[in-house]
């Protein structure tokens, strides 16, 4: 089967590896501390670790888009902001 049409590149492969490793880390974390640590955070609904990861990832995507749209290239800064945002989400939401 020819998969060249998928046009894989290094950075996109890294991107997907990153997502997959996030999921794996979540599973390992869940194995050592089951239950997902549910709590009601500043968004006033119950979230587990998985929800917080999802909110972080979705938010990061929008941070990157906003950076590209308003400021321009140089996504390392956006990545940095995303990390700060993700830590914030895991601490408070």
């Amino acid at each position, binding site marked *: *089967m*020819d998969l060249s049409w998928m046009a894989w590149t290094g950075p996109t492969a890294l991107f997907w590896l990153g997502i997959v490793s996030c999921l794996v880390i979540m*599973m390992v974390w869940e194995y050592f501390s089951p239950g997902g640590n549910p709590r009601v955070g500043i968004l006033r609904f119950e979230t*587990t670790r*998985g929800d917080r990861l999802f909110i972080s990832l979705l938010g990061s995507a929008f941070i990157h888009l906003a950076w590209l749209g308003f400021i321009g290239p140089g996504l390392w800064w956006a990545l940095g902001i995303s990390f700060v945002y993700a830590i914030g989400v895991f601490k408070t939401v």
Partner: protein
Amino acid sequence: MESTTKETTLLVEGALRQTNQMKKPRNFRWFTPSLYIFFLMLPIYWLVNMSFKTNQEILSKFTLIPENPTLSNYVVIFSDPSWYNGYINSIIYVVMNTVISISVALPAAYAFSRYRFLGDKHMFFWLLSNRMAPAAVFVLPFFQLYSSFGLIDTHIAVALAHCLFNVPLAVWILEGFMSGIPKEIDETAYIDGYSFPKFFIKVFTPLIASGIGVAAFFCFMFSWVELLIARTLTTVDAKPIAAIMTRTVGASGVDWGVLAAAGVLTIIPGALVIYFVRNYIAKGFALGRV
């Protein structure tokens, strides 16, 4: 309790309005639905009307009822394989899709309704988000994906592609129905010595028969009405009727009569299906799972 305050409110408001409320005749309630149905039927009536006219009559006169009713437009469709094969193709992939969707969704819905497991909520959300994903996003990669499997222009390609939105839907509907079945039934069956597959087929499936009916109906419906993906993945042999309809635009202009007749014929399977499941639809909707 909130209900007490609610009651008081109702009482006070009711007392204030009692006089003009009681005398109100209820006989005009049919008016709104009738008007709405009239609005719904008007364009369909016009399509049916046109399908019985000759092109000459369609273009030259404005008549509410065909002057010389003719079946020639339908004869064109039923005598030309490239026309009626479109219907056969559509029916084939729709049925395939419905069967696949229901058979994979049944065990999954059971898992969601009976167990908690790692990442269950996220899995459910992910499935649903596929139901909401715009088909336009998937058109191009789908074409590439099915080309690489050599499945372009086959019925199974369309059936599999439609699973993207029909499987999540089927899981969603079936989960709703299964949650309504008490868990004691499962436990009793296991105590009686049923194995899981035997219990599932012999005991559980008959209990949610109406749920399967509703889910099958919605799978049928969404696969039947979808065109963008079906059109992209087919060229000749599996082309759905809805895509063939564009053929009527020929060198000599549009063949309106045949177009209308083809349109009328696409409405009929849906109408038949909906007639058979009419008593279950309200139930399916009641679960809010559509």
